[in-house]
Every structure is written in structure tokens, then in C-alpha cells.
């Protein structure tokens, strides 16, 4: 199949989310376009505040006023999300598109039992006819995400589970309705390394088993390398690079991606020093029409002092850098 004949599961074009700030409107998501194919894993990378999470909250319709979301196109499984009312958007959330929140320690309601939290999603979306049915399905979900003695622990409260287990329970609530797209927002941030690997393996396994697409939001390139088919790198609300995961990692075509890679410790190159990216990500607020990475970049020239568009550089890849070719092959 060629790319042209295949309709992606989720297609977003020109997504912009604006929050008013004292300095003026901040475009925290600025003209972002992407797509997620059926069964694909898209890795979304960027440092804190780059707009990764808010991009997908915008897609789900979860941005609260005064935030304003607009887009040229937002299609999910043949449905135009922009044309749907709030009720229809809500019906899609949790049932067709589910999201797991960054911090599993706080994303579960401390006052409700795990059973309540998993079954409620199913009952709300009519995926279970009765409470008994929902509880049986909840036990199955908990088993699926690898919680030992699931049936026994069904009526426990979140504080009685460890961090890794809570992350699994959150994944179980997100998957309760067998969504077609799972957005995993920093699924491993609050976990230690061994548990991280388990949770990632779990997501990969469930993806195969339930044949769902996954968006993996993370600031950890290592996580993305192993899981994602494609990568989208975000910086200051914009997509700065995208392409097939392996190619982007091996051959970054934007200085920011290159910088992220250079600042990552690696077992193969222990002797090489780690290069942090100098400076700090810009504060959200009105931005001048310049390359946003300008003052942190090592390649800055006069040619960079303008607004740089995201340009295709061949092979399904794109970069928002004047020097894309040189960065990639230099």
C-alpha cells in the first residue's frame, strides 16, 4: 500500500493552542500537524514545556478556557473531531482514544477503590451491561496489565499499591474500553528503571495484542528508540523534526534533536563527554518571527534570523532548520 491510499487513524493539521499571558497570547502549540496510522507507535519527544502534552490534550478537547484550540483539520477514524459537539467528543474520550496521565501517583482518585475506577469507564461508555460484568472485565484488565492476585485486589485503594502497580492500574483504566488509540503521556517518568522497562514492554505487548495505535509522549529519547515507529520532536510549541524513528536517531536533521541525542548518556560511548544543550527553553509568550532555537543553537547564522518552516527533506522526513542537510550529514 502506498501512503496516499492509506487513511491514518488520527490526522491533525494546523493545530494551534493559544493561552493568554500577561505578555500577550502564547501559542503553546503552534501550527502542529501530524498523523498516527493504524497500529503505529508515534513517539513525541521534547523537553518540559515544549507543548507535547498540551498538543494531545487539545486533540482530546480537554483544554479548558481561557485556552483556545483551533485546527484546519482533525480527523479520527473518519470522524471530523472539529464538527463534533461536546457530548460526542466526550463519548470518544476513553472509548476510542484513551490517555494515561503523567503521574500515576496522583492520577488515580485516592478516595475510590480501583474497582470503581476501572468499572466506571466501562459503565460510562456502555461497554458493560451490569456491575458484575464490569467487575469481571476489570479483573481481566488487571490481569492483562500484570497485577498479581487481581481478583483479590479489586477492592483495594490506590494508596495500597506501589508506584509501578499504580501505573499499571492507570493503563488498565485507560484500556478498559479497548480504545483504538492510546496516548501514553510520560508513562515511565515516576518509575525507577527496572519498572520503566516493564511498563514499556507492557504497552508494546498490549499494542500487539489489542492492535491499537500508541502515541508515546516522553522526554526520554531512549524510550522512544525502542518503542516508536516514527518520531516527532517538539520545541517551544512547534514540531522541529519528524521522521522514521531509526533515521531520526541515527541522523538527526535538526540541531535540537542532535543536541538531545548528544546530551544523552550512552553505554556504547562512555568515554565521550555528555554535551548538554546550553541555555533554556523560551518562556511561553509571544515569540518573534525567528527560528525559536536561535539563541541555543551552535550553528546560528544570519540566515537563521527568520521564521523557518517545517520542510520535507526526503524519505518521509521533515526538519525545521535552514541547515537540515548539513546537520544530518555533517
Amino acid at each position, binding site marked *: 500500500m502506498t501512503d496516499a491510499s492509506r487513511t491514518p487513524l488520527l490526522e491533525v493539521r494546523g493545530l494551534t493552542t493559544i493561552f493568554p499571558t500577561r505578555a500577550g497570547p502564547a501559542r503553546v502549540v503552534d501550527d502542529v500537524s501530524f498523523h498516527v496510522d493504524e497500529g503505529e507507535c508515534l513517539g513525541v519527544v521534547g523537553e518540559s514545556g515544549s507543548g507535547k502534552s498540551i498538543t494531545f*490534550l487539545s486533540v*482530546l478537547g*480537554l483544554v479548558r478556557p481561557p485556552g483556545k484550540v483551533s485546527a484546519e483539520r482533525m480527523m479520527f477514524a473518519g470522524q471530523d473531531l472539529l464538527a463534533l459537539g461536546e457530548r460526542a467528543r*466526550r*463519548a*470518544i*474520550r*476513553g*472509548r476510542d482514544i*484513551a*490517555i*494515561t*496521565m*503523567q*503521574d500515576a501517583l*496522583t*492520577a*488515580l*482518585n*485516592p*478516595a*475510590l*477503590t480501583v474497582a470503581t475506577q476501572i468499572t*466506571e*469507564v466501562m459503565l*460510562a*461508555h456502555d461497554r458493560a451491561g451490569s456491575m458484575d460484568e464490569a467487575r469481571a472485565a476489570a479483573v481481566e484488565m488487571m490481569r492483562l496489565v500484570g497485577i498479581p492476585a487481581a481478583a483479590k485486589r479489586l477492592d*483495594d*485503594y490506590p494508596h*495500597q499499591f506501589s508506584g509501578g502497580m499504580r501505573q499499571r492500574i*492507570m493503563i488498565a*483504566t*485507560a484500556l478498559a474500553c479497548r480504545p483504538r488509540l492510546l496516548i501514553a503521556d510520560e508513562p515511565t517518568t515516576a518509575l525507577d528503571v527496572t519498572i520503566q522497562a516493564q511498563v514499556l514492554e507492557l504497552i508494546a505487548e498490549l499494542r500487539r495484542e489489542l492492535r491499537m495505535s500508541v502515541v508515546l509522549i516522553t522526554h526520554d529519547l531512549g524510550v522512544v528508540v525502542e518503542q516508536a515507529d516514527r518520531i516527532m520532536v517538539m520545541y517551544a510549541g512547534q514540531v522541529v523534526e519528524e521522521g522514521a524513528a531509526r533515521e531520526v536517531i541515527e541522523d538527526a536533521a535538526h540541531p535540537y534533536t542532535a543536541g538531545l541525542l548528544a546530551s544523552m548518556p550512552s553505554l556504547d560511548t562512555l568515554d565521550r563527554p555528555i554535551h548538554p544543550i546550553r541555555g533554556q527553553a523560551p518562556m511561553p509568550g509571544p515569540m518573534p518571527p525567528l527560528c525559536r532555537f536561535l539563541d541555543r543553537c551552535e550553528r546560528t547564522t544570519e540566515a537563521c534570523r527568520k521564521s523557518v518552516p517545517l520542510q520535507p527533506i526526503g524519505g518521509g522526513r521533515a526538519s525545521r532548520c535552514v541547515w537540515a542537510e548539513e546537520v544530518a550529514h555533517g
Partner: protein
Amino acid sequence: MSGAVAMNAGVQSPLALGWLRLKQNPMAIGAAMVTLLIVAAAVLAPIIAPQDPNEADLFRRLQPPVWLGGEWAFPLGCDALGRDILSRLIYGARISILVGALVVLIASVVGILAGLAAGYLGGWVDRVITGLVDILLGFPYLIFAIGLMAMMGAGFQNIVLALVYKEWVVPCRIVRGETLAAREQEYVEAARALGASRGHVMLREILPNILSPVIVVATVRMAHVIILEASLSFLGLGVQPPTASWGSMVSEGREFLLDAWWVSTFPGIAILVLVMAINVFSQGLRDAFDPRMQE
């Protein structure tokens, strides 16, 4: 005992844990028992009251309590109409407790709903509700109630209404504040992300998390409402005679304070004991259930 609490900590809901802590507080348990005793007396009034509370007999006018030369049939003496004070006290408890419980219950339901709506929905809903709350807070409670009673007329139903009109403000403010904090919690965002409606988020996600301060405050307020009811009855704006109420009993006896102190004093003590018992109990509740009081 504390070992048992620690061991159970792993398998108990927050509510069950609070209950466990409450049971270890002797003051609170004692206060709860006093309160329950008065409630039981109110409920069982027809059975345990020695006399008919409204049966007057001028031959017994201002008869002293039994230890001052009265008779055992009227242990706490009689009032100016010769009615048995003990029986009137027992029946009067019904009014105090019923008004206290009803007002706090209705005010809590109204206040919780209004507070949730104001805190979670925000916008004009919040502005309208907080505006109303601010206006109501501007009136002194008793003056407000007196004014309302004067307009609506005395009577049991009107006392409850008059007090509810202002009382709901208290739970409303607490719930609004707690909701403002809770709505920013990640679990609320997570629930929304899984397709929860606004009503669901407010009632099923937020409310269970903020309920314990509301319950604690409701008990304190009950004591407060009982005093207000007594004050209204004292001023003659409460339940109408001959129905016994502690406030009106104090009022009826005040002309005879020097000759027959027992007419006013016993209902006064009854108010004091009930209000104190409720307050001590609610203090215990707070220690046991308020998460900020722990550790």
C-alpha cells in the same frame, strides 16, 4: 491498640481508618454517648416522660424540685402553669434535635451542590453563587433569622427554612474552596480524559475526596443551629406554645428567676450539655477524619 491501627492501615479505606482513630478517643466517645442519650430521650419521649408535658395544674404552680420539698412525681419541679419540667425537657429535646439535624442536613445538601458548581464550573455560575454568599454573610445570623421569622410567621417549618436560608453558606464556602483545589488534581483530568461528564466529575470524583471536612463542619454547625433555634424560641419566634422547646422554657422562667430559678435553669443546662457534647464530639471527628490533622 496503635499497633493494630498500623497493621490495618494497609487494608482500610480512609473512612474506616478515621473511624478506628475516633474509637480510641475517650472524650469523643463520651460526648457521642451523651448526645445519643439525649437523642434517645427525644425519640422515646412518650414512653419515658413521667407526665404529660402540656398538662397544667395551677395548684402545682412553681412547685420546687424534689430535693427542695417537691414531690417525686415532678422531680425537677413545675413551671408557672404547673407543668412538669422534666417532661417538658424531654419533649423539648425533640425540637432542638430535629431543627438542628434538619437544618444542617438540608443546608449541607444545598451547600455541597452550590459549592461544587461554583468551584468546578466557575465563570458566571461561580460569580452568582459567591455573590449570593457574600450578601448573606453581610447579615448577622440572628438578626437575619429574626427578620425572616417576622415575615414568615412562627412555626416549626419556618424556623427550619429561616435557618437554612443562611446556613447553606457555610458548607458552600468550604466545598467551593476544596473543589477549587481538587479540580486541579490530576485524577480529575484523568477522569475527564476517560470521558467523564461534568456531573460525574463533581459528584463521583471530587465529592468523595472533600466530604470529610464537610461532615466535621456539619456537626459543629448543628450545635450552632441548636443555639439559634433556642434563641428564636426564647424571643417567642420559635415553635408556638404550648409545644415545649428549650428556648421558650428559659424565656418562660425568666420572670421568676429569683423565686423559682429551676424553671429557667434546667432547660438552660440542657442546652449547654447538648451543645457541648456535640462540640466535643465534632472535635474528635475532626481529629480523626481531617487529613491535615494527621501526623
